[in-house]
């Protein structure tokens, strides 16, 4: 291990160390007011990690090619850090209100982020697997974090069982790839001649990552887990698991298996089409906003898969752009729900949004904004995100997939708009109250501001995402 290796993984070290410091400091804190310190430490640690990425953005490999730092790594890691910071802000009030707050929560959140960051940096299947588990295990615990809630316990258990199954498939795929190429390094796999074992292995790896990304038909866990998990945990995992899974898919398929594209492209395209249709159609029937957003996140996995399937520079940066926008708008939508309570419990039905515009115009307007963006309506950033992916798809000749994407978008308007109407026109939900949550309000304000900024000036974000494409040219 050379000093250069250490410098390459400095951002990861920041996050890991912050997670441990938070855990240690928590031992000395007595009440909820003092735990504000944990939030501060976490935010400082995340900022430190981000600054170390920005200070040394040069492309490099470390640990003998196991670890890669390039434009894709940097972009997705910065996104993960931003997501983690927002999630920390959004979580605190909810945890304090429900008596769940403890140092472990923030530690788990930071460790999961670390996993997603490593997935974006993997240059080797073994590191990818370890990163996948570093992401997944904390998320299982977070899903079951509400110890006294049966729903949450069930969610944690279900997520753990199905997630382990997916990890096993992934690992089996790794074994097959190794059997064929006698290596786990992306650079070596990329040069290997094709063969049945390799194709099978790649297929299994795709299935394993498809589970994590909640792509249909491997999405069955998502609605139950999303619904059962505590709201801030749901918000966080709906985003960070996607970033991790798509970071891995992009890295592995475009950098380790580019020659096999002829095999995996049709597979990913079919997955994308099925995911878009299943997610959007199932979301139509939901009465719980949490479940609706769960299916909507399935649908968004489908759009993201369009970019992966394209396998082109346009697909790569389009997916990066989409991940950024998706992360913000999904966190933002959950952030609004975090404010609603009924007798101290979550109020997560569509009807519970009724009358929100009279109680809190800001919350209602933010919610409408995020729904419009999730639906991909101009001028919100969700529109250009979809537009870039559709373009990438058409550019590689998959017009049919773009048409499926368009159909899915039309369907999605029905449920997003229904939820937005509920906040404006629906009958007032009398027993729902809007909780006071200054930290969450700060997080929400950041999400709204960023979304609005990129609605008006999408140029900088586009240029930022396009840096990643240089790798494929």
């Amino acid at each position: 291990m050379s000093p250069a290796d250490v410098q390459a993984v400095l951002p990861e070290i920041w996050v890991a160390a912050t997670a441990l410091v938070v855990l240690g400091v928590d031992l000395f804190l007595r009440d909820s007011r003092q735990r504000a310190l944990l939030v501060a430490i976490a935010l400082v640690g995340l900022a430190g990690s981000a600054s170390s990425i920005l200070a040394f953005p040069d492309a490099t490999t470390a640990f003998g090619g196991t670890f890669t730092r390039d434009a894709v790594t940097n972009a997705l890691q910065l996104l993960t850090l931003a997501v983690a910071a927002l999630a920390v802000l959004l979580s605190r009030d909810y945890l304090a209100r429900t008596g769940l707050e403890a140092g472990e929560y923030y530690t788990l959140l930071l460790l999961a982020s670390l996993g997603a960051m490593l997935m974006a940096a993997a240059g080797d299947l073994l590191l990818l697997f370890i990163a996948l588990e570093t992401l997944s295990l904390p998320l299982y615990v977070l899903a079951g974090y509400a110890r006294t809630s049966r729903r949450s316990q069930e969610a944690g258990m279900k997520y753990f069982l199905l997630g382990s199954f997916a990890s096993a498939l992934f690992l089996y795929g790794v074994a097959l790839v190794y059997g064929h190429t006698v290596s786990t390094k992306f650079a070596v796999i990329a040069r290997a001649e094709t063969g049945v074992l390799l194709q099978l292995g790649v297929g299994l790896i795709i299935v394993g990552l498809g589970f994590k990304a909640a792509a249909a038909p491997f999405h069955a866990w998502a609605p139950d887990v999303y619904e059962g998990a505590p709201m801030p945990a749901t918000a966080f995992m709906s985003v960070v698991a996607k970033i991790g899974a798509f970071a891995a898919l992009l890295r592995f398929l475009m950098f380790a298996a580019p020659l096999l594209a002829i095999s995996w492209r049709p597979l990913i395209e079919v997955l994308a089409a099925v995911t878009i249709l299943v997610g959007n159609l199932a979301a139509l029937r939901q009465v719980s906003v949490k479940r609706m957003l769960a299916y909507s996140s399935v649908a968004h996995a489908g759009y993201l898969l369009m970019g992966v399937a394209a396998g082109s520079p346009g697909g790569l940066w389009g997916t990066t752009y989409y991940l950024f926008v998706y992360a913000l708008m999904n966190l933002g939508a959950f952030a609004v729900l975090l404010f609603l309570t009924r007798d101290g419990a979550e109020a997560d039905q569509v009807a519970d949004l009724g009358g929100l515009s009279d109680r809190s115009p800001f919350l209602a307007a933010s919610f409408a904004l995020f729904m419009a963006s999730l639906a991909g309506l101009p001028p919100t950033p969700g529109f250009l995100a979809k537009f870039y992916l559709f373009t990438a798809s058409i550019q590689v000749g998959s017009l049919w997939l773009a048409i499926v994407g368009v159909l899915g978008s039309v369907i999605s308007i029905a449920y997003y708009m229904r939820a937005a109407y509920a906040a404006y026109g629906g009958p007032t939900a009398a027993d729902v109250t809007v909780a006071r949550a200054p930290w969450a309000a700060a997080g929400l304000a950041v999400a709204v501001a960023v979304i609005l900024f990129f609605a008006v000036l999408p140029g900088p974000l586009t240029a930022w995402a396009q840096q990643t494409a240089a790798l494929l040219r």
Partner: protein
Amino acid sequence: MNHSLLTWLVFLPIAGALMLAMLPRQAHATLRGVALAVFVAVLALAAYVFFSFPPGEAGFRFATRTPWVPGFDIDYHLAVDGISLPLVLLTAFLFPVALLGTWDSVREKLKEYLALLLLLEGAVLGTFLALDLVLFYIFWEAVLVPMCFLIGVWGGKRRAYAALKFFLFTMTGSLLMLLAIVGIYLSSGTFSVVDLYAKPLPAEMQGWLFAAFALAFAIKVPVFPLHTWLPDAHVEAPTAGSVILAGVLLKMGTYGFLRFCLPLFPEASHAAAPWMLALAVVGILYGAAVAWPQADMKKLVAYSSVSHLGFVMLGTFAFTIQGLQGAVLQSVNHGLSTGALFLIVGVLYERAHTREMGAFGGVAKVMPTFAALSLIVVFSSAALPGTNGFVGEFLILLGTFRADWRFAALAVPGVVLSAMYLLTMVQRVFFGPVNVDAKQFPALSARETLALVALIATIFWIGLYPKPFLERSEAALDRLSKIVQGAPRAEVVPGSGR
């Protein structure tokens, strides 16, 4: 050289919406006052643009163009020409009139209501002014959200259904147009309408691209048989929403044909013309036939829109200069007269809380001024000489006769039918024995009178002196007419983009 005037035109209403958001919710008078002031300021700007636009100019004026997303060749490019100019003025005129005419009719969530109206105006103006395909698409879709909320939150009983139907219909069409925009970009490398005017697309691509664009515009117009969302949306929309929907939003469809379909895909337009003309004639007759037996006045006016917009489509696809001029002028006329008709229905609804014709009778005895004003509006909608409707429909029929007399001959009964169902409505509502309830109807308020009188003034202005409109649109339409009729492409863009 960049003019900032059009940017002001588009973003002044949007800034007004933000300003409203900061005012207290309960201050209804202030909220309405601010909204009206912004609308009037926009009207003043639009009037300045209109009257300083030189007659005979075939290209674009007041252009502003800067890269918006440099990485994807998307420009912020606004400009106005003789085709969009009348529609910009119409839009800026109808919003304040619609607000005046329905001053007190919305009391719940007034702040959101006015903010949405302002956002809607900004988006519509952007649609008419954008000269970058992506920018155009963004404004085009951005119109949907506020309109959908206006119907869905402040609408009638079946508002949720109507709003969703409106949204899904228009969205399906427009997303296919989005794919066509991508197709154009991938084949030509530009989103700029002006650049595309200069280099024709390969003929073999034009068919599909035309189909995708035409579908989006045909749903918006709406062209028979894609009109089924319109009656639902109108019946459920609040009055101001109906005025804007019929007056301005439908024109986005007719404008789309003139701005994109005809000049970008001339060969395909030519090939599709007989079909479009046939659909236009069917729409004229079908709309009129269905309007006649309607008992609900809003439905009657909604179906009459289907019929009248059939004329606009007829003129558009006749490709002759008279037809095109008639189409542009009739787009404006329909906005004025149908907007006024919806206001009239709104005035009646405010007083009787029903739109069933059977519930009225003898209103003319109780509200004589209102009856007189309504009658003028009806004359305009029925295209009586002296009113604006006559000039528009006459030009369209003349232009169509020159292109293909059979379609014109088939469309003429539509004029007669339209007079019949409109006059039937007048007779049942305003004349005959006075209905008991009608005796308690309060007289027209000063604001309602002002709104109707303003509309009627423009009706006579265009009816008696259409020259300011015609001379400003003539050169641009003449160019367009030559493009589609197969004139050499080299002449296409004199001085455009500046």
